[in-house]
Structure formats: C-alpha cells, structure tokens
C-alpha cells in the first residue's frame, strides 16, 4: 500500500489490517511527532492532516487510506522555517510538556483552513463577523486536550498565525 507522508512516498508491505494510521506513523515510519494520548479519539494528541483535513489518526485504520496524503507536524513549515502556527506557539509559550503540542498545531492548521472556508462552529451566531474571536478559537480547538493547561497562550498564538 502506498502512503504519502509530508511529500515522501512510502510503500507499506505486510500491513496488519488492525494497524492505525497513528501506529504506522510512529512505529513504522518513526514519525513520532504525532502523539498517542488515548488511542480512542478522545484527546487529539494524534491529530494530523489527511488530504488537508484534521483527523485523529488513532481512529483511522491505515489500510482504509490507500494513496492518502498525510501531513504531520514534522511536515509543517518550509525549508527550516517554522509554520506560522509553530512560530506562534513559540512566541506565546503555547505549551509546557509539549506532548499535546504537535496535535494542537496540526489541529490549528486544519482549523484555520476551515475558518478560511467560512465553516461555522457550535458558537457561531448568524450575525457572527469574527470567526477567530477568542470564543471561536476555544470552541474550535476543544477537541485537543492539554493537561498542562497551556490553552490561554495558544489562543493568541493561533489568532496571530491566521494573519500571517
């Protein structure tokens, strides 16, 4: 089976049908940026971009995604320059232990794309003008848990990244 991860093609031979996308990334490709916090789709630590959309990679069986294009935290940014969301996290101390961080960052990248397409969230009112108001960012990022409680620093990090 073929899988494109961060632009590189991988041929996966003898893939166990039970193997999740997350375990392929971590255990076979050694891309350990995607983290395993729960393995049950409950924490968001494993968030990656699958064909451009944010997903919990622990909930996806790898064999169901032939020819998919995956972007992990390792694949964000250009030529050694961090992605604006990564830059924002650095500037605002948007993390402590860092274990939720790759998932938060991938999730934020996916979320900003959803906002750019005008997707509403659960807190969007019919007259909402700012889809990146603090309450919007918090709602849209609520699938990514952070036990260190770095949330308040992530909000400005994400908002500023949207403008870059």
């Amino acid at each position: 089976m073929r899988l494109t991860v961060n632009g590189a093609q991988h041929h996966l031979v003898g893939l166990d049908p039970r193997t999740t996308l997350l375990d392929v990334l971590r255990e076979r490709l050694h891309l350990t940026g995607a983290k395993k916090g729960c393995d049950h789709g409950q924490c968001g630590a494993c968030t990656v971009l699958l064909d451009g959309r944010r997903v919990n990679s622990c909930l996806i069986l790898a064999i169901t995604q032939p020819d998919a294009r995956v972007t992990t935290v390792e694949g964000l940014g250009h030529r050694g320059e961090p992605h604006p969301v990564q830059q924002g996290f650095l500037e605002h101390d948007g993390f402590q232990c860092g274990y939720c961080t790759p998932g938060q960052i991938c999730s934020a990248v996916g979320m900003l794309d959803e906002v750019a397409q005008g997707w509403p969230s659960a807190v969007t009112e019919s007259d909402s003008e700012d889809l990146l108001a603090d309450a919007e960012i918090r709602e849209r990022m609520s699938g990514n848990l952070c036990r260190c409680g770095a949330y308040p620093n992530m909000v400005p990090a994400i908002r500023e990244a949207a403008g870059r």
Partner: protein
Amino acid sequence: MTNTLSRAVGSPLARLEGPAKVSGAARYAAEYPQDQMAYAWIVPSPVPRGRLDAVLTDPAEEDDVLVVLWHGNAPHLEKSDDPELAVLQSDRIAYRGQPVALVVARTLEGARRAAQVVQLDITAEDHDVELRADHPDLHTPDEVVPGVPADTATGDVDAALATAPATVDVTYSTPALHNNPMEPHATIARWDGEDLVLYDSNQHPSGIAKTLGTVFGLPAERVHVIAEHIGGGFGSKGSARPNAVLAAMGSWVTGRPVQLALPRQAMFSMVGHRAPTVQRIRIGASLDGELTAIDHESWTQTSRLFEFVESPGVVTRSMYPVPNLRTSHRVVPLDVPTPRWMRGPGEAPGMVALECALDELAIRLDLDPVELRARSANPGYLSCLRRGAERFGWSGRDNRPRQRREGDWWIGTGMAGATYPANAMPSTARVRALGHDGYEVAIGAADLGTGARTILAQIAADELGVPVDDVHIRIGDSTLPVASVAGGSSGSASWGWAVTGACRALRESGDDEATFDTTELVGKMPTDRHAYGAHFAEVRVDAVTGEVRVSRLFGMYDTGRILNPRTARSQFIGGMVMGIGMALHEESVLDPALGAWVNHDLAEYHIPAHADVEQIDAEWLDEPAADLNPMGAKGIGEIGIVGSPAAIVNAVWHATGVRIRDLPVRLDKLLPSL
C-alpha cells in the same frame, strides 16, 4: 551575586527545547527506535480482590507472541520499598486493574490481541471499595508523610469552640482524581549484557535507576534511565511505576528491547491518583473575625498494598495562626488501587475545606472574605490579598448572594487563599568548561514541562558570567550527577542550588570542571517556610441548566524570586486550569459492585478543555526569599491548584446562594436549588 551584569535570571527566556517540541523532534520515552523491538501489553485483573490460579493462552494467538508472563513463570524480583513494583510475584490480587500477566509479542497489535484473549483462572473474593467516615477499619497512620505526624493539637480546641461567639461546623468531600498527564506512562527497556537501559517517562531518573537496581539486584550505576522529554506527570511519575519493571522483565525474558506504553485506561489503576477525602472542619471566631479555634478532621482511603495517606489537615497547621488548633487524619485500607501524589497532595483538597469554611464564616459574620483573611495573614499573604483584590476589581463587591443576573446567568465572585511549602532536596551538579564551546552543566534533573532546563541555563549563565547561549544543559539522564525528584515544587530550588554551587566552585578554583553537592546546605535550610497566594474567581451559572462557567480567574502569588516570568506564568496558569477541573469537572467514580473506575478514559473523566478556560491570569510580588537558597526562589508548580478550586466554589455560592460542599460542583447538584 558574582556578576553584577547578571541578567539572565528574571528574563522571559523562551524554553530551550521549544523548537524541538513544536516541530515534533523532541523524543519522549516510547519514541526511541530499537532493533528487533518487541511490544508488551498488560493483562489487568478483572476483579478487585482474589487469587489468580492460572493463566491460559490461546494457541491461535501464539504466532506473534513471544511470551506470556505471570506469577507462575515470571522471574523472581528483589523487594523494594514499594510493593506495587513486586509485579507478577504472587497470586494475590489487591485491586481491579492490577497487572496480573504481561504479553510480549512481535507486534503491538499482536500483543494487544493476545492480552485480550488470555484466560485468567481466578478465585474472586468479597471486596470492599467504599470510603465511609464510620468505616470500622479506619485507623490513625503513624505518619502522613515521613516526618509529618497524623495528628496535632495545641490549646484547648473544644473549650474554644464551645465559647466562640461565631462558629461553623461543616463537612466537605473531594472525589478521587487522576493525574492524567497527556503522555501515558511508557518505557522501552533493553539489556546491554547485565546492564539495564530504560527510556522511561518519569520525574526522577536518578531515583528510578536506584529503585530498578534494587528490584533487579543491580547497583544503581548499572541501570541507565533516560528521560529527555516527559509529557507531564503531576506527581504520577514521581517514582518507578509497574510499567518500568514489567518492560525490563519482558526484555530480560525475551532478549529483545521491549516497549510498554500504558493505555489510558490503565493509568486509572496502576500509576496512582489523588485519594478521595471527607473532611469535617470546625472554626471558632470572635465577632470581628479573629480566629480562635480550628478543628480539621479528615478521612481517606489507601490500598491494601501500600499505605499512602492523602493529608488535607497538614495545610491548616501553618495557614493561619490560631491559638487552639487540632488536625487529624484517619485512613482505611480498601480493595482499591494505591493512591499517590497528585499536584498539591494534601494542600489541594485541604484548602477546599479550609477556604470554603472560611467563606462560610465570613458570611456568618457579615464580613468581606478578603478582610476576614487579612486579619490573620502574614505580610506576604496580606500583600497577595490586597494586590490581588485590587487587580481583580474586588472592592465594592456586594457580599450578599444571588444579586447579579444577566439574562439567564447568575454572576458571582469568590476568593480563597493559597499556600505551598518552600522545599529543597539534596542534589549534585557538575560544570565543565568546554573552551570555545562554552560550558556544559549536567544534573540528573527532569523537565516535565516546567521549564527546568531553561531556568537552569539562566542560573548557570549568570553565575558563570556568560550569555545563556554559552551554556549547554544536560538533564534527564541517570548517569548525570544525582538529582532530587521533580516534585514538591522543589526542582528550581534544589537543582538551581546545586548548579549555582558548581558554577561558583568552577570560578573559584579556576579548574575546568567542578561538582557541587548541596546535601549539607539543604540540611541547614529553614523548614517552616511557605509560598503564599490568593485566588479570585468570577463565575456565571446558567439559571436554567445549572451550567457553571468560570469567566475570570486570577492568582496573585508571593513565591520568592521568579526566575523566568514566561515559564512561571505558564506554570501558575496551568495549576489554576487544573483547579478549574477540580472545582467543576474532575471526579473518578468507583463502582462499588465492580470495584472499577467506571469513567476510566478521557471521554468520561473530564479535564478542562479549551472552551472551559476563559480569562485567566497570574501575577506575583517577586520578592526574593534570600535566606532560603541562593536564587531566593520558592516553588511555583503546585500553588496554582491550591485554593483556586475553593475560590470557584465560593463564587458559585455568591452567584446563586447555593453552597456545594461535595466536589465537583456539577449541575445536577446545583439545579434543585436554583
């Protein structure tokens, strides 16, 4: 200090490991590829009490399986001081979820599957998992923490309470709570000949090397523990947990490196939690708010394997000067997992009872809650109360409950004090001059996300009189000089002290290497010193649904010198966020019939999410405690969760007039009275 130009300490330096953490390059325990690595999966006990007679494996699953270990075939382990580490050594089952067998297989999927279909031949026995304040097996522990007595008494509490013009007599309860660091406990173990190498997620590489050495009959230096990055711990990784021993055992038997990463569910049983408490607190006061007596009694549970005592009464011994003071702790062993440290152990639940009871006293006396505390506060605490109140906008508060309504929301404010002991523990650091490459500073410390690596570089840079970039910090490795645990909010003080000493010794000697051990100095340090603080909360409560939202949370702290305002602020805020969880969301529910934590995952054990955290901020006095340690620092990692839950509970009362004394404040508890 030695260098008058020193400025690194106190500057908001960004975390040194930041670029590695945001790019995915930072490696955590389970992320070190190994040749021929095998995967282990734990088989947990399905019953809370009984005897394991046999383990039968399904031959159909054997393809992938290298070995299934249980007490019938597991290697013998030496005794350590933690009975939880005697894994697979006996047929006794002490709690549901206890590891009773270990599958090691070639693949992760194979190990997991085999563990699911393993058959356990168990003789179950009647169990008891219910904490009751009248449980017949309650007893007084010898000590609650080494050196800290279970009971204390000064003055005549009964007489003072009987004659006090104003009293409160209330009982608060706090539930079991689980640390749930984002990174599950994980170990990769490998034997290099007779030497054991462990990539392990923990708060104390030096200590774990020693303990694992004991268990496997090796001197500590033959065990190499690597913990470069740790995805949080909050106390649950403070000492070796069964995962480290099991991975090492699996590797010994199979001859391969073995990875054992706990599933989230297993973190509810075998790695510790905060025990539930029931606390009765009685306070006597004069009509103008002078505290004349406090009696703080508490009841908690432990496991049958190990007596760990959650100690809420200890904080009451030092928070306010009271002439008549009694504190007591009772504990009952049940068929439950062993509780351990969780951020602010003792202090966090203790200050729920004390600071909520004081709020009830203020109401009875018709006094402002800030003023009531100000009467008994020491100078540092008093400054936190005054400045915190000013920054929060406390003045002019109508102290009557249920006065502010905006749409469907009842609005209220509340406050509570905070405290945490100023600790330090013996540690050793080493500095080497590397010529043009600057200096290497080495200490077996651990950075769980606290910013330890960064502040140690700041401290060393100032002591050596060089820019931070010239300092190369090596931590997270047991082969480095022995360091104390990253716990008890003591890391900065303990390790910073050793680093300071080593840097000064290097400068004074002119040699190119120096080592400094703080054991003697720490022994002379005053032991009765504390950090203080005050928390202020504004909540809104939905009059229709009972939903509680924390609109604002503010902490003002007297924590000595702040070494790095950027990482310090994050720690304070992180503690307060966990305080929101303790007040409103978190509780582990033990089913009495099954003896199981029924909400043992992150979908049902609710920790605060992004949307739960609105305005939150922290400030500090920044007054160095020069007599404590060379940095003048007090610990900051835990104080944010001490008192912040009480501030929120008090604010809920102010918003609604409903007093909840059983945490967390759930909407179903509020709704009938709204």
